[in-house]
């Protein structure tokens, strides 16, 4: 299936993705309303966008006590808001920390690829995000990406 892939060397950490996402989905600008989040480490200038990989299997789905997370026929994980109790178990168990709760509705915010044309990918100023076919079912973990990147940049922390 198609997934949003990340090139950490290209990401400038500008958070345009967060802004276009919240604007598109909520008609307002606010990073806490975005489905994509840029993890920023100013110490060594690393910026890493985190967005749902729609893993197969999905840990958050397995652990949801109210079975509010389901998978669509395209393979995308989504939440059934009427079933959600807002316990936050999904954000604790997601392996890359891609889920968070809507600040007002208290239900999980999960990327749905904007129905096949992700706006964040389209608007990314440095093309750090791409929308591509991949059969890798589990994403690389953020810690591993950071370690590898710093080694490549020859930064010793």
């Amino acid at each position, binding site marked *: 299936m198609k997934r949003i892939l990340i090139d950490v060397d290209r990401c400038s950490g500008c958070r345009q993705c967060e802004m276009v996402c919240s604007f598109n989905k909520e008609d307002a600008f606010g990073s806490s309303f975005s489905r994509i989040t840029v993890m920023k480490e100013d110490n060594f200038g690393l910026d890493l966008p985190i967005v749902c990989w729609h893993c197969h299997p999905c840990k958050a789905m397995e652990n949801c006590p109210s079975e509010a997370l389901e998978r669509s026929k395209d393979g995308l994980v989504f939440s059934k808001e009427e079933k959600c109790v807002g316990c936050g178990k999904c954000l604790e168990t997601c392996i890359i920390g891609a889920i968070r709760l809507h600040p007002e509705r208290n239900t999980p915010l999960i990327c749905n690829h904007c129905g096949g044309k992700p706006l964040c990918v389209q608007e990314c*100023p440095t093309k750090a995000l791409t929308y591509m076919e991949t059969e890798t079912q589990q994403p690389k973990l953020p810690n591993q990406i950071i370690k590898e990147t710093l080694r490549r940049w020859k930064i010793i922390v």
Partner: protein
Amino acid sequence: MSEYYGYAGKILRINLTRNKVKIHHIEKELITAFLGGRGFNSKTLYHEVPKHVKPLSPQNRLMFATGPLVGTTFPLGARFNVSAKSPLTGILGDSNAGGHFAAEMKFAGYDQIIIEGKSPKPAYIFIRDQEIQINDADHLVGKDVYETTETIKKDLGERSVQVATVGPAAENRVLYAGIFANLARPAARTGMGTVMASKNLKAIALKGTSSIKIADPKRFWKIVQEIKEETYVHPQYWPRRLMGTTRILMLADRLGILPTRHFTSGTFEHAAKVSGERLAREYNVKNRACFACIVPCSRIYVIKEGEYAGLYGEGPEYEALSCFTARVGNSNLNLALRAVDLANKVGLDAITTAECIAWAMELYEKRELSKKETDGLELQWGDGEAILALIEKIAYRKGFGDLLADGVKKAAEKLGKGKEIALHVKGLEIIQADPRGLKGYGLGYAVASRGADHLRSEPFIELSDDPKKGMEMFGVPEATLRLAHEGKGKLVRYFENWCAIIDSLEVCKNLAENMELLPFNRAAEIAEAVTGFHFSKESMFEVGERVVNLERAYLVREGIRRRDDYLPQRFLKESLPNGNSKGSIFEMEPMLNEYYAQRGWDERGIPTDATLEKIGLVHVAQQLSRHVKNSPVKKKWSSRTPI
């Protein structure tokens, strides 16, 4: 949610003496008259910090403000202004920084944060939306900028908080310490960090979860897409992305305006060795951007081999790089990177620090300073050991550094030597571009409201040396010739107004101004789309006019007159000895006369009543006429609604 589109809608006032917090709603009149950011701050400064207030006293106000375009997808950066009465210059202090702090401030719900009073013990403020904590900062005292930021993030248990902090230099009351956000994003000029430290305030940490709504999303999106398209094909896009502002170093060298060895030369023979080009080729590993900006012009460098191998960090930008290379005669790039890193860590303004060092070096060269006076340091041009030692000495006010820590003007007065080569205007040290080869910039330094600084006007169009543009824009072909002095009054007035609205909208001058992506008409359009209030090209120009004149009125009240609007004698008497601006000197009088006339100020540099009335500053005019002796008494004031 805010009452007004584009704004967070609230002004937060924290009194540290009484440990009290007040929240006000912003008013429509404030928005339409001043837009935000620098405009808001200058207005507050004028009304709340009168003449008798001492800069480092609890009565001074420290203000952070941001603008209506911040915290949206608007792609030209997101900045904030910090203002207060400056301890370095004693007049208007103001500095501006990018990064991600400004947007977080909006998401937390505030357009302006005003700090009053003085905390009884070291403290830092943590703001999470409506929740405001004044936390103990005993454990942060003496910690550098990097350590403080890291400790606060750990204390709060959240990596995504935005921290603006001061370093040890501010705590030791060095008069030109800055406030550092995102580690390397300083609001460094005019000693705003020193004011913050004088309030016993070590840092402000922010986390916001609310959102910003705008009035006309469709129109906004259309303008943003237009700007994006123009940006990606702009000839400056790639140079800026590769080198940021460091690309200017070689350009300045070619034009003969690269201040070398304390402005005794306009070219630096080792320029290529310390250039942005070399940084890009050999040091940089990636780019970074400010919030929502589409030109990632900041770079992460890593020193891969040689001296200081393993050092890494963000930046440097042109000013800091050029200051610690050409200005002090240093040709060792690794050393310059180390010096910038050190200045950042201790929290100093790189420009002023380098001016103080270069000034001392010139005195040492002329044998007016002896080794005994400099604590045994050999202040030879480019001496790495001396440069690093002096930064440290200044930050901790040790030995000779104690003298330099008051800025070059006061240092020269105290030492009783080197007054004529102390390069400052109104007490603020001059930046890294020689005014003799850039006359419009020079006039900008002379009249800028915060002292010798280019960011109040930055008439970059001069660099084109294209008389057609001068003819088109100002009816004077010389206005856009960098070595001519005619028409510069018109030029600087226009660009000052432009910069004032860019600072008030809080976007980036590199893009909005230098790349000409936000001219007056587009600024009006975007402000209209975001706020829903009506703006036109003319009303935008008027906002700029208002901000500049209000700041001037503030200066006049503080006693600033024509005599303070002069560049240092070096630029008026000594011509440039080499390079492509060879033989040029700065013609102060005619340029100042033209500028005052263009501004509607009298020959003393005081805005006339008519000038102030025209832009709605009637109260200011009335107050000013009471303050200024010999001003003609006027009885009838215009009936236009006062602002």
